[in-house]
């Protein structure tokens, strides 16, 4: 049983791919320019994998995630700004595809929350302290 499995493994196609085609070149290869690669990696970590249960495309083995990584790297290599690439994807999939919520009326409470909480907490504490005599 084991030998048959081993033999099978040696001739089998890539174990994880859904399709029969190999991953895109730029799905798993880093850009030669280190600055561009850093920008691409930073963006990939903030884009959501569309077919996963809560992972960024940087952390996913899914094929579509690989193709999205390739898209990000190619566009940044062509000189596009990361924000432009993000915006292009948000245009197609909605704010859901970005782990960084866009700053818009829908997410103002989210971004205001830290400050609001601090102020609320400080206000609740206002009577606690004894005045310095």
């Amino acid at each position: 049983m084991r030998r048959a499995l081993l033999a099978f493994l040696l001739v089998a196609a890539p174990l994880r791919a859904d399709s029969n085609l190999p991953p895109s070149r730029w799905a798993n290869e880093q850009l030669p320019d280190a600055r561009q690669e850093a920008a691409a990696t930073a963006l990939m970590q903030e884009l959501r994998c569309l077919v996963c249960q809560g992972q960024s495309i940087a952390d996913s083995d899914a094929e579509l995630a690989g193709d999205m990584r390739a898209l990000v790297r190619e566009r940044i290599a062509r000189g596009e700004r990361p924000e432009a690439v993000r915006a292009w994807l948000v245009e197609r999939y909605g704010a859901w595809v970005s782990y960084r919520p866009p700053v818009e009326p829908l997410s103002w409470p989210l971004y205001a929350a830290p400050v609001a909480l601090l102020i609320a907490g400080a206000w609740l504490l206002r009577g606690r302290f004894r005045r310095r005599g």
Partner: protein
Amino acid sequence: MSRARFLPLIVFALLVVAVAWRLATPKDDRVASKLEGQKLPAFALPPAVPGKPGLSSADLATGSPRLVNIFASWCVPCIAEAPVLLELARRGVPIDAIAIRDKPEDVAAFLARHGDPFQRIGSDDRSQVQIALGSSGVPESFVIDRKGVIRAQHIGPIMPQDVPAILQAMEEAK
């Protein structure tokens, strides 16, 4: 302390309402394209099989609505969808396809086995056009109107019960 002592209770009540809503209306994890109502992005795909033309955005603004089916030979639900597509084609719906990450021989084998309702098939071997359309899986279908504007998206295989809705969408796209 004053009225502030009721604040945690009120906040909790609001959270319970939101959560109860979520339990009542189950999550739809499908990601829909946000391009509905917008013109198709420009693209030009080479043929997926020899003998059949490839697909470009220009081919989809021909003056009458068309159905674009995003499929792949390695996609299992696409097999279930094939007879329905054949039926739609028989009823006069012009269907084009985009084959995702596929080899010509595999596409040809799929069409030979499950039927070929498509007039044109473009080969999208790195999912780039799929992403440009806001599609996130296979199979999906788009209703494109005569001016090349995306009018409707159907996520998942088109089942017999979905046919009336598709035909309706094609009507409205005229």
